[in-house]
């Protein structure tokens, strides 16, 4: 009997949490930007976007290198290593860049956001802000959410570009695929409106999901050290699962139909 009551309470808690998170998101998305908000936003862009640049760049490079190597060793068996450019670019633009960048972003920036906001809550900084009449949603949460939404798509584009150059490095410079066929195969199969733009749309969705989960988990965490730890873990787990799940749905909508 007790167990059933606990289960029910948990379900109610979760549903309430989704409601609170939605209200918070709508409040932030439909509030007017202020001058102070913009400078805070720039600072958060620096912390969230610029500071993630290194990990995104290095992972992009290595993923490109691996794609080039694997693609070559598979394609050379059927004598069509000229398709390497097509394979590397389409894989990166459609799938790997949005998904891997979002997963890295959830680990690198999302966890930090949750821990920071959670600690602010635990040390009652948020409550004191409310006391002196500053809305913590506007002052703390909003710039971080917007910075995440703007910076992840930019990181994704950089990731894809570096990955394609990495694939070129292995395929063309090390393994000797013809450079002309690498680029021309790519250009004839990649359509800007279809592949590049859809990849960016995907990453905008992932950015919203990742940062939304991160700031909500921080904002709603239990104000204890254990609570912060749980929330940070949840941020990474939920973000990764949501990114992978939404990726399937978005891919089905964008690339599943007959072209």
């Amino acid at each position, binding site marked *: 009997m007790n167990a059933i009551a606990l289960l029910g309470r948990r379900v109610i808690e979760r549903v309430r949490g989704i409601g609170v998170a939605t209200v918070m998101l709508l409040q932030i998305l439909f509030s007017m930007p202020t001058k102070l908000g913009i*400078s805070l936003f*720039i*600072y958060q*862009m*620096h*912390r969230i*976007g*610029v500071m993630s*640049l290194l990990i995104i760049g290095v992972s992009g490079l290595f993923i490109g290198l691996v794609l080039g190597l694997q693609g070559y060793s598979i394609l050379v068996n059927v004598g*069509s290593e*000229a*398709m390497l450019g097509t394979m590397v*670019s389409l894989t990166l*633009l459609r799938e790997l860049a949005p998904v891997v960048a979002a997963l890295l972003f959830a680990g690198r920036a999302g966890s930090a956001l949750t821990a920071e906001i959670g600690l602010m809550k635990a040390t009652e900084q948020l409550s004191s802000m409310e006391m002196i009449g500053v809305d913590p949603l506007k002052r703390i949460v909003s710039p971080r959410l917007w910075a995440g939404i703007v*910076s992840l798509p*930019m990181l994704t*584009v*950089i990731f*894809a*570009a*570096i990955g*394609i150059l990495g694939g070129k490095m292995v395929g063309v410079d090390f393994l000797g695929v013809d450079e002309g066929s690498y*680029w021309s*195969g*790519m*250009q*004839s*199969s*990649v*359509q*800007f409106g279809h*592949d*590049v733009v859809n990849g960016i749309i995907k990453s905008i969705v992932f950015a919203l999901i990742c940062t939304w989960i991160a700031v909500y988990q921080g904002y709603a965490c239990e104000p204890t050290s254990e609570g912060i730890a749980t929330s940070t873990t949840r941020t990474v787990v939920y973000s990764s699962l949501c990114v992978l799940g939404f990726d399937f749905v978005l891919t089905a909508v964008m690339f599943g139909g007959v072209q």
Partner: protein
Amino acid sequence: MKSRTSELTVGIFVIIFGVALFFLAMKVSGLSGTNLRDAYDMTAQFDNVNGLKPRAKVTMSGVTIGRVTDITLDPVSRLATVHFELDGKLTSFNKEQLQTVKSNALEELRYSTEYTEAAPAQQKEMEKQLVDNMDSITSIDEDAYIMVATNGLLGEKYLKVVPGGGLNYVKRGESIANTQGTMDLEDLISKFITGGAGKSSEKTADAKTSDESADAEASFVE
């Protein structure tokens, strides 16, 4: 100071993003706009354009002279209509060449029976019409045919214009009448297996006569 440096790094971040996006647009998707000079549109109807995509190249003797812009299906003939644009600089004559082409055409006209049987006034009219017709000609002659070719054995499909030896030239905006669609390897194999090879040669003979009749029609119109 802190906000100054963060503004600077965000600026650099945005610039890197811009460069990456530019790279994806230009180098990866080949979205460099139309670099065709003095472009004009042409059409051709194919029985099969399997594998041909918009933005595929159009070549003549291996030189890229244009791009496919659109592929539609004609509901009446149920043939695929391919719209493509060609580079005007590469596919038209310069003044001197145009002069030679005109004089050749006039000479040809003077030897034709129609011309010799016509009255002098009519002859003048015909000459004038001929010269006027030559104003917007391309360097593609009417005997030329256009085919869907494959780049290598497994590469992408593109359009190949094979010049004929005719003295009449296609005008800008017209369509190229002689076409050859995608060669379907499976069709060829199945014909070979079922012994339909004789039939197919009959078919090509038919196609040839129909081409000839089309040519005859064209010259009759002129």
